[in-house]
């Protein structure tokens, strides 16, 4: 079997990758609550199998791109046929983008699941949790392998549904219930744009398949050049209009600036879910979708849609990084950091570099999963404390967690030679060639990233343990806490099934960047994912400056938070007095939630009030007026006609009707099945009459 046949064979088997977690989810949905071990084993084994298949496909796509073209095989089949001309297809694709993404999702997902067995150890709804996790992974993998916007959209919505279920996994907490709704509604606003984009694509190109390799029925992306010739809306070509609408969907899913509000609130879910949402599945879907539809985005040279993408990414990157500086919840800092890094990816994509955006997506997945799992371990180790002010000194208690967390932090900060350094540098380089202003803002965001991550490290792991502070005042409470099994209210290292996953991931966070380093003759990742893309000219200024800001950010973090660590949990943040009102402003996340509440929410509520008043006053008023008129007329008739003439004659008639009614009421037994039986009998008799007469 030669290589092309082998690839085709693999493409036909792509559906196996999401199948395993899907089957696992189906089985788990039928399991009973106590079947905890079975449930966890099912999830992890299914994910492991998927990972094997994904890596097999990944290995097959390596080394195929020698002739400067992307290895891409597709397999399409008809799902639904309306008539001889109209049908809906589904299909799978195997190309570097898909293969790399699927391998990353399965690998990172696998380790997150292993960690989740530890994190959720005491939860009574363990099986339900793993069922949702499996479904989440299955839908994300379905999204990754689909060669069809319809299938992509279905999986996209499934991913949204699963994140809704998992964010609200502890639905009995009002904040979690609110967060799940917020995530669902905010992403839904983006999905409206996405769906319009799909409709418009079908309208303009007549197909939802992305690639077909068939000159008679070309796929949508193969028609991108032709679509760029048609006129669309808002001064764009059809291709760019569709790209713009699709990007709105990606903005919702990948938490870009105006629609980012759901992501930080999604921290209400269990921490492994946060890791999964932030690294491998939910938010990655948006960026992945832009990468998948990239030919449409770039079809029309000079359209403003790419600049729009770049600036949205740039704004998100800076905006969320500033918020992360002033947060105290360990997971919220990471959440805003994810927002900011997603902004980087989108900015890279908008700067015409598919390679940079996708490379950062992959490396970010590893170190952000690592950081979230580390945060989960910190939370478990400190008995469900999330406020960084009440942590401190964990370096002594949790050495393994500390080491891996530092590695993740260095990677995220873009410390030289780690994974984040190479990928972020590539984005900044691409941006540098497009817009100097965006590049400066991006570099500033990179500086803030290094700063807030160093702040977090020093607050959580250095200084003295501040968690016990408040317990002295509440001796009674402390005692009852002890009876539940925590003998010492001191942090402790987590079991092996929790630290092993992020130890594995930290290896990748350190070394993965070398896949995309510009220092070799040929950038491996670039060569793999998009050999046709022109590499950005490297610039010593960009690289030097990004090294400098990373180091400066870390240094500044050490100066402010490391030299003199916090003594008490109630101490103010060292930055708070210096920044004053600005710190409060950032701590309240630029008051975006309040702004939305004052505008969108208030507007909707006012409309509701108005319509209610309208209903009460006008509609009800008219109804009451009519009723009153009718009543008045009837009164007249009553006194004139009824009482004198009709009643007398009527009474005797009524008497006989009542007698008849009494007899018939016996039939009205109230047992609906009896009525139904009579009805069926009647129907059967009618049917027999029809046949035999």
């Amino acid at each position, binding site marked *: 079997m030669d290589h092309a046949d082998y690839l085709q064979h693999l493409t036909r088997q792509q559906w196996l990758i999401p199948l395993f977690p899907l089957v696992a989810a189906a089985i788990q949905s039928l399991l009973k609550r106590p079947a905890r071990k079975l449930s966890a084993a099912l999830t992890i084994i299914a994910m492991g199998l998927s990972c094997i298949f994904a890596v097999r496909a990944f290995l097959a796509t390596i080394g195929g791109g020698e002739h400067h073209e992307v290895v891409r095989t597709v397999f399409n089949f008809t799902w639904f046929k309306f008539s001889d001309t109209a049908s809906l297809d589904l299909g799978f694709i195997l190309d570097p983008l898909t293969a790399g993404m699927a391998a990353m999702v399965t690998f990172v997902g696998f380790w997150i699941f292993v960690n989740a067995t530890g994190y959720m150890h005491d939860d009574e709804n363990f099986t339900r949790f793993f069922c949702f996790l499996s479904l989440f992974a299955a839908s994300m993998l379905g999204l990754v392998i689909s060669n069809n916007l319809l299938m992509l959209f279905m999986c996209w919505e499934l991913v949204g549904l699963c994140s809704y279920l998992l964010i609200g996994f502890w639905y009995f907490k009002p904040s979690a219930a609110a967060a799940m709704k917020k995530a669902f509604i905010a992403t839904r606003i983006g999905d409206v744009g996405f769906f319009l984009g799909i409709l418009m694509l079908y309208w303009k190109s007549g197909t939802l398949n992305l690639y077909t390799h068939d000159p008679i029925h070309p796929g949508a992306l193969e028609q991108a050049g032709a679509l760029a010739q048609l006129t669309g809306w808002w001064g764009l070509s059809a291709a760019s209009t569709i790209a713009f609408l699709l990007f709105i969907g990606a903005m919702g899913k990948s938490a870009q600036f105006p629609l980012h509000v759901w992501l930080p609130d999604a921290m209400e879910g269990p921490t492994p879910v946060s890791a999964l949402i932030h690294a491998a599945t939910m938010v990655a879907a948006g960026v992945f979708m832009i990468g998948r539809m990239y030919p449409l985005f770039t079809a029309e040279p000079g359209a403003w849609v790419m600049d729009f993408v770049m600036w949205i990414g740039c704004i998100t990157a800076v905006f969320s990084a500033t918020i992360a500086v002033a947060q105290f919840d360990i997971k919220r800092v990471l959440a805003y950091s994810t927002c900011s890094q997603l902004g980087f990816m989108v900015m890279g994509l908008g700067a015409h570099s598919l390679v940079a955006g996708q490379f950062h997506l992959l490396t970010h997945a590893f170190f952000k999963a690592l950081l979230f799992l580390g945060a989960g371990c910190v939370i478990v180790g400190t008995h469900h404390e999330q406020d960084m002010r009440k942590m401190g000194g964990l370096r002594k208690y949790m050495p393994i967690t500390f080491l891996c967390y530092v590695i993740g932090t260095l990677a995220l900060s873009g410390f030289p030679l780690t994974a984040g350094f190479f990928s972020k540098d590539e984005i900044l380089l691409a941006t540098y060639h497009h817009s100097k202003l965006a590049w400066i803002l991006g570099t500033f965001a990179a500086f803030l990233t290094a700063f807030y991550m160093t702040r977090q490290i020093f607050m959580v792991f250095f200084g003295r343990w501040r968690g016990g502070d408040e317990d002295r005042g509440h001796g009674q409470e402390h005692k009852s806490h002890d009876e539940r099994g925590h003998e010492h209210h001191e942090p402790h290292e987590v079991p092996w099934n929790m630290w092993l996953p992020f130890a594995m991931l930290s290896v990748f966070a350190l070394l993965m960047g070398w896949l995309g380093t510009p220092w070799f003759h040929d950038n491996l990742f670039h060569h793999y994912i998009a050999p046709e893309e022109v590499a950005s000219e490297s610039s010593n200024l960009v690289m030097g400056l990004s090294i400098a800001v990373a180091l400066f950010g870390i240094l500044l973090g050490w100066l402010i938070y490391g030299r003199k660590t916090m003594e008490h949990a109630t101490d103010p943040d060292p930055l708070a007095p210096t920044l004053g009102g600005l710190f409060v402003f950032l701590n309240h996340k630029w008051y975006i939630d309040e702004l939305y509440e004052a505008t969108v929410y208030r507007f909707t509520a006012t409309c509701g009030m108005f319509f209610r008043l309208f209903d009460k006053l006008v509609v009800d008023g008219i109804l009451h007026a009519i009723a009153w008129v009718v009543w008045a007329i009837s009164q007249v008739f009553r006194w004139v006609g009824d009482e004198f003439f009709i009643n007398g004659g009527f009474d005797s008639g009524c008497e006989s009707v009542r007698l008849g009614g009494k007899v018939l009421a016996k039939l*009205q*037994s*109230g*047992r*609906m*099945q009896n009525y139904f039986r009579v009805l*069926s009998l009647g129907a059967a008799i009618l049917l027999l009459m029809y046949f035999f007469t």
Partner: protein
Amino acid sequence: MSIPLGYYLMLSAFLFAIGLCGALSRKNAIIVLIGIEIMFNAGILNFVVFWHYKYFAVLTAQMFAIFAISIAAAESAVGLALVIAVYRYYRSVDVDQMTSLKG
């Protein structure tokens, strides 16, 4: 393609009969609902089969089938909500106990 029309119709008739039996004879309101759903689906099967053997114009039957499926979904949602409401009131879903419509 080679399966004759009659087989499909038999299947559909069987389905309908099974659903009817369930709806008529069982006491549990949920099973009654399930029986009704089965009858629904027997009808939908007829539509699709007749379309398949080109008894209808292009899309009519498909559309009927899709509408019927969505209506069946809505109907079962309402039905289950009613069952839950009834359960709250009577603490039972036995249809023989729901006789408050008695004349």
